[in-house]
């Protein structure tokens, strides 16, 4: 400044010096470059600072969103044949703790137990005092509890939304649908089948945790299922039976429209499921089906061609075989025509038919009808039939009327369906199946004419045989009673019975087969001291049919001619054409 004062010439130099400095060009340009570097460094510092900030904040967010959100796996919905929800997932908050972040364990325990009374205080304290990073405190709390705990603001306590399986219809569909464990894995019924048919693999690969899975449609009709269950509960109470079971199947497709076994359990609270009394008697239990099996024996006799509806069978005397004497419950003591053997449910008559055809023929026929092998369906519960190891003539005699061979009731239903639907054996299914699909799976086991005759016999039985109490006006029901004595300590008990009733409706154009079973029904005053099938299982079946037939869309028809004209004559003329 002081140097620049005197002249104009230095003034100009001063300006030049202030503008360009009095240094040489090289130093000047270096300084400029330095300035630019500094400016850019500042800009980059700001950018990287911002980057670090963004990374730090959004990282936590995305981690919460992506990872570990779904702990209990998602499952597809299960619907009935009309689209009613049988099982679905809802999101439920679960409570967890992070022990390392907890400041005051005692306070946390106190506050939590005050909000959720059923929380075990000592267990929670133990978990929160551990060195772990993460502990579950309670799975599946309510939304209100979540809100309350959230407001308490305890550090180190958090929530995670988990999928919880809900069965809106409770016990109605229990045995059929099964249930899941706390981690939403199927452990029984259709739920287990879902896991086995690929869902578990999807889960392990990390897929299938979306809600967008295709729902599974079952063949069951919830309304029919409920109607059957209500009637069974009423019948079980009325006859003081130990258990009751009912099954409704479509004879033309093999679809199981209803399957009930009471006592059952609530799949929302499956602890009771382990109770031995609550097993599914239709698939897990094997029983001697009693006279129901006579349908198979008579069909075998008719199908062999050696017997016709006009054949006569001697039932004048009890049948002696070794030290055993086979007697009739409704003993007629005369020669019976074949239809009478069926309607009077004659043990002697059916035994004679089976003996006439021989042991091997009998065995081969039952094998063909699927009665000697384990029947497998979608649900994992199944039981092996109890087949005698050495099958002699005596076995054939007793098996002919349903003793000495124990099968799962579902299996017997499959066999009898085949006798009704024109002779096609169709494996039963819990899933939807069309008639075309069923036709591909079907195996012709008896002649269509045999099937016509069997339907005639079933209907005849409801008109004037042991099944008259199962008649429901308008639905042309045909049926067969079955009463077997249960084995107690290796002997047949006279008082402990298993009664069953198999009904086909309508008998001229069969659509559904209904099986009702009562375990140890007691005789009542109104049944005149009888506890056989015709007095308990048959009227129960009538009640069930009266309720379910309108639901199943079967139009009632009145004033139909008796069985010999409606079934035998009509089908014979149809085949002749």
């Amino acid at each position, binding site marked *: 400044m002081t140097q620049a004062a005197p002249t104009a010439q230095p003034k100009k130099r001063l300006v030049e010096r202030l503008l360009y400095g009095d240094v040489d060009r090289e130093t000047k340009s270096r300084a400029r470059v330095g300035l630019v570097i500094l400016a850019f460094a500042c800009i980059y510092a700001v950018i990287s600072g911002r980057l670090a900030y963004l990374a730090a904040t959004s990282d936590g967010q995305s981690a919460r*969103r992506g990872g570990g959100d779904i702990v209990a796996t998602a499952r597809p919905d299960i619907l009935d044949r009309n689209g*009613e929800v049988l099982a*679905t997932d809802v*999101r439920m908050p679960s409570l967890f703790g992070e022990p390392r972040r907890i400041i005051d364990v005692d306070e946390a325990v106190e506050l939590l137990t005050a909000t959720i009374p059923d929380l075990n205080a000592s267990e929670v304290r133990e978990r929160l005092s551990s060195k772990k990073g993460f502990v579950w405190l309670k799975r599946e709390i309510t939304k209100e509890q979540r809100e309350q705990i959230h407001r308490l603001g305890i550090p180190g306590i958090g929530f995670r939304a988990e999928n919880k399986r809900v069965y809106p219809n409770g016990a109605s569909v229990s045995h059929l649908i099964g249930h899941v464990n706390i981690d939403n894995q199927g452990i029984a019924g259709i739920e287990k089948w879902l896991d086995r048919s690929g869902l578990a693999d999807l889960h392990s690969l990390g897929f299938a945790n979306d*809600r967008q899975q295709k729902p599974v449609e079952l063949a069951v009709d919830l309304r029919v299922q409920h*109607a059957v269950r209500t009637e069974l509960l009423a019948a079980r109470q009325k006859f003081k039976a130990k258990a009751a079971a009912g099954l409704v199947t479509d004879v033309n497709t093999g679809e199981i429209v209803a399957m009930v076994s009471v006592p059952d359990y609530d799949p929302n609270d499956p602890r009771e499921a382990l109770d031995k009394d609550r097993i599914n008697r239709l698939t897990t239990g094997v029983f001697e089906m009693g006279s129901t099996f006579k349908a198979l024996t008579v069909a075998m006799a008719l199908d062999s061609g050696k017997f016709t509806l006009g054949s006569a069978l001697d039932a004048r005397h009890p049948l002696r075989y070794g030290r055993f004497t086979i007697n009739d419950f409704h003993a007629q003591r005369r020669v019976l025509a074949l239809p009478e053997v069926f309607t009077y449910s004659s043990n002697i008559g059916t035994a004679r038919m089976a003996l006439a055809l021989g042991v091997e023929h009998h065995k081969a026929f039952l094998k063909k009808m699927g009665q000697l092998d384990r029947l497998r369906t979608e649900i994992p519960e199944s039981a092996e039939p109890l087949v005698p190891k050495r099958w002699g003539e005596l076995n054939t005699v007793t098996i002919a009327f349903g003793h000495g061979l124990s099968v799962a009731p579902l299996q017997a239903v499959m066999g009898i369906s085949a006798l009704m639907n024109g002779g096609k054996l169709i494996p039963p299914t819990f899933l939807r199946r069309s008639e075309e699909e069923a036709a591909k799976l079907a195996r012709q086991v008896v002649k269509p004419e045999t099937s016509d005759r069997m339907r005639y016999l079933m209907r005849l039985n409801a008109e004037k045989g042991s099944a008259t109490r199962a008649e429901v006006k*308008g639905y042309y029901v045909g049926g067969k009673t079955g009463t077997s004595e249960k084995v107690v300590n290796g002997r047949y008990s006279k008082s402990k019975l298993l009664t069953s009733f198999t009904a086909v409706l309508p008998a001229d154009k069969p659509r559904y087969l209904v099986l009702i079973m009562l375990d140890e029904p007691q005789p009542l005053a109104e049944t005149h001291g009888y506890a056989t099938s015709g007095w308990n299982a048959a009227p129960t079946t009538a009640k069930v049919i009266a309720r379910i037939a*309108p639901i199943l869309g079967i139009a*009632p028809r009145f004033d139909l001619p008796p069985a010999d004209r409606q079934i035998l004559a009509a089908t014979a003329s149809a085949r002749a054409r």
Partner: protein
Amino acid sequence: MSIRILHLFVIVALIVAAAYVYDIKFEATMQAERLSKVRGEIRREREGIAALRAEWAKLSSPARIEELTRRHLALKPLDAFQIDTLANLPERKKPPEPQELLDPIAALITGSDALETGSVGKRSAP
């Protein structure tokens, strides 16, 4: 000189490009945020729908409806005799001929005795 203009042009282009890229980036971030927000909303809605469906299924379960019906309604299970086909319906009766419309007020105004109703008729007939 031309070099300077070129420099100027390039610098301006650079600034414009940077601003444009920043704008796009900003827009993209906004869109991504909106997307994740909407996804979250959809998920919540789906969960809500599932919860409502479960509740509806529970409320409309046959067991509950039956219990309510038994308690509050006089309905009874359907009997087969209550079902019939359309063909069995009797022939429909012919609808009655429409009677001539009589307007009581118009009759009053015109003073005609064609219509005698109520107190008016009584008074006019001594």
